[in-house]
């Protein structure tokens, strides 16, 4: 079920980025936990594809979280309050606290950024950037990077099938898989480069570098209110960060 869109993609992306900045600035486990519970978890649940996002978070952050807990929880040289000890490994309260801090921070980062990235509507984003008059080439990079990904994946799949039909046996051992990957990459990259050369001419012919303002087929979903809100949010976070550091330095 697609999520009901509330804000413009630009507003959503900015909010996600500012949240990450806030977590970095405040840098306490209580605040990270609060953001996680109050913002990230509801965000994922209301995203319309909680399973996909949860899986993405688990795959990216899971191994890091685990290793962080093992490393800091068991071996934290600065730790003094020893809770348990097995040979060289000591579980200390400070170590656990540090692990919780970094772990929560990491969870917030991946949660916020992945939710934003996986739910943002790229066409709407590109259209907003066009309406706001952003640099055309930057807009193209944003739009085509995402547009090309599924195309590249499909192409890689077809090449693999063609190679299998010619006698490539994929699977089993790691060297065999690596060889399979290399075999796919050569025709894939060659094909993409040829496409890119042709696409350059097509883009030129269709007025991509024409001077003057551009329009967009999609209507502008951005509002004056949201534009103001974005400036206020950015200014607010900046001001808060300055104040936070000033107070911290004064203490």
């Amino acid at each position, binding site marked *: 079920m697609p999520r009901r869109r509330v804000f413009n993609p630009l507003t959503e992306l900015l909010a996600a980025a500012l949240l990450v900045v806030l977590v970095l600035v405040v840098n306490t486990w209580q605040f990270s936990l609060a953001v996680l519970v109050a913002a990230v978890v509801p965000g994922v649940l209301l995203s319309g594809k909680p399973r996909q996002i949860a899986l993405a978070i688990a795959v990216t952050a899971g191994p890091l979280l685990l290793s962080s807990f093992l490393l800091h929880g068991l071996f934290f040289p600065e730790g003094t309050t020893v809770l348990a000890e097995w040979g060289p490994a000591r579980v200390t309260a400070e170590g656990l606290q540090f692990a919780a801090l970094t772990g929560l921070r990491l969870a917030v980062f991946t949660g916020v950024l992945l939710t934003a990235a996986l739910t943002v509507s*790229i*066409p709407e984003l*590109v259209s907003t950037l*066009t309406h706001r008059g952003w640099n*055309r080439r930057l*807009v*193209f990079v944003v*739009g*085509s990077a995402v*547009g*090309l990904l*599924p*195309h590249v994946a*499909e*192409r890689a799949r*077809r*090449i693999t*099938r*063609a*190679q*299998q*039909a*010619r*006698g*490539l*046996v*994929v*699977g089993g051992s790691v060297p065999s898989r690596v060889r399979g990957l290399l*075999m*796919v990459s*050569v*025709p894939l990259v*060659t*094909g993409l480069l*040829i*496409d*890119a*050369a*042709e*696409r350059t*001419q*097509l*883009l*030129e*012919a*269709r*007025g*991509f*570098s*024409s001077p*003057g*303002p*551009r*329009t*967009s*087929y*999609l*209507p502008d979903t951005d509002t004056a209110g949201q534009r103001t809100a974005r400036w206020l949010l950015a200014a607010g976070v900046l001001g808060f960060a300055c104040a936070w550091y000033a107070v911290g330095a004064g203490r």
Partner: protein
Amino acid sequence: MIRLECSSFAYDGGPVVLSGVDLAVEPGALVHVVGPSGSGKTTLARLLAGQTGAGNGAQFRGALTLGTDRLGFTGGPGDPRIDPAAWSSTVAYAAQRTEGQLSMMSATVAEEIAFGPANRGMPAGELRAAVQATAARLGLTDLLNRDPRRLSGGQLRRTIIAAAVVGNPRVLILDEPFQGLDADARAEVARTLEVLRAAGTALVICAPMLPGAAPGRSRVLALVSGRPVFDGTLGQARTAGLERYAIGTEGSAPDVLRDPRGWAAAAPASGFSVKAGGPLAELAGVSFSYRGEGTRGQAEVLRGVDLRVDPGDIVGLTGANGSGKSTLLQHLNGLLRASSGTVAVAGRPLGRRTATGRLAGAVGFLFQDTDQQLFERTVLREVAYGPAAAGAGREAAQGRARTALAAVGLGHAAGEHPYELGFVERRLVAFASLIASGPAVWVLDEPTAGLDLRGRNRVGELILGHAAAGGAVVLATHDGAFAGALCTRILELKDGRILSGGARRGAGGA
């Protein structure tokens, strides 16, 4: 309207690929530029599209006239540069390969069509109206909200044409607009072009063969090795004996040697062995449905198909798009595994765990899409890949590759990069790759799509030779004349079932 005078054109430091051409296109005209692979059609199309290659070291001597403006070119650095955006508003161009023709910035067909005018700053209201009007004219209204990367071949061509003509150009240049399309998709694209022509857009269509159906008054310019060999009406072209230049007519029967000794000479000693008696491949009660995204529920693509392929068989599969032809073919080499029923190759049943790669020596597969099955640096390495993967030594593999290349008539191209060859040659390289592995069963998906007369005849002879030597061929095709001339059995697929039993006929359609 537009006139190209080309006394010579050469790509960066290369030989002259086009010369002696003087082509004027009047408003509302229909011009067919025909010629075998490598005859200079694409170069001509690009020049008309204003791509004189000035920045890439190409040397163009001649002139381009658009309306009353005549631009002269001497091949020197002082030559005029053409603004592609301005040029394309009068002369639009749809290139041969479709992959590079999408902007990749559009999530829907509507945005793709709107891309050009939006870049030129057309106001939003007008933009919507222009897109809707173009879509309505070309019958694309139902596709406007579809993802352009997930269209069928014919739909994609029409989208690209729509994106090219949304600004109402007066001339549209099309480089092989029918390449790789089946009969239904061809008809779709042809209807689209007819609509444009009726509205007064001049069309220049480059293709390897003369069109099967087109107004007899339309003009034909035939090119061979970069030089014009015929310039006249289509009616005259049909009787001008262009076959001697390997320019045939769409939909005509292939001109294969009727003498079996000729086939044997064309067929390489691919060295397959056939066990006496049993069938080479057999499908029994095979049903199949695609799983996963994009399909609603579990639509069955194949429903209880039985097929027995014996030595000497040339089985033709026909049927509309989506009837299951390609799906059936992919069961023969294990790319797809039956949901129920059994598949046996060379007397051995195909298990779930039999790797597709292990079957390459028994069943050779030619894909519909050529470019995604070529992946090596040279033609020789490409063709030698199969035998080498099957365990042949380097020398032996290259030896077999050379034999296979000679069989398809590409012995001279062994050292070239596959991507530097023309479409027909690339298709024949893919064919040679299949032959070199020495499989007894050839599975061919649309083997003649996009081929010129010579290539089509060559493929016909190879197929006949393979069957005469005791191998078997299963091919899916929309080329009725080709299937009729070659196949020992023609089976029609409809909704995943074999409709007609296909009476056995003699080889060569006799």
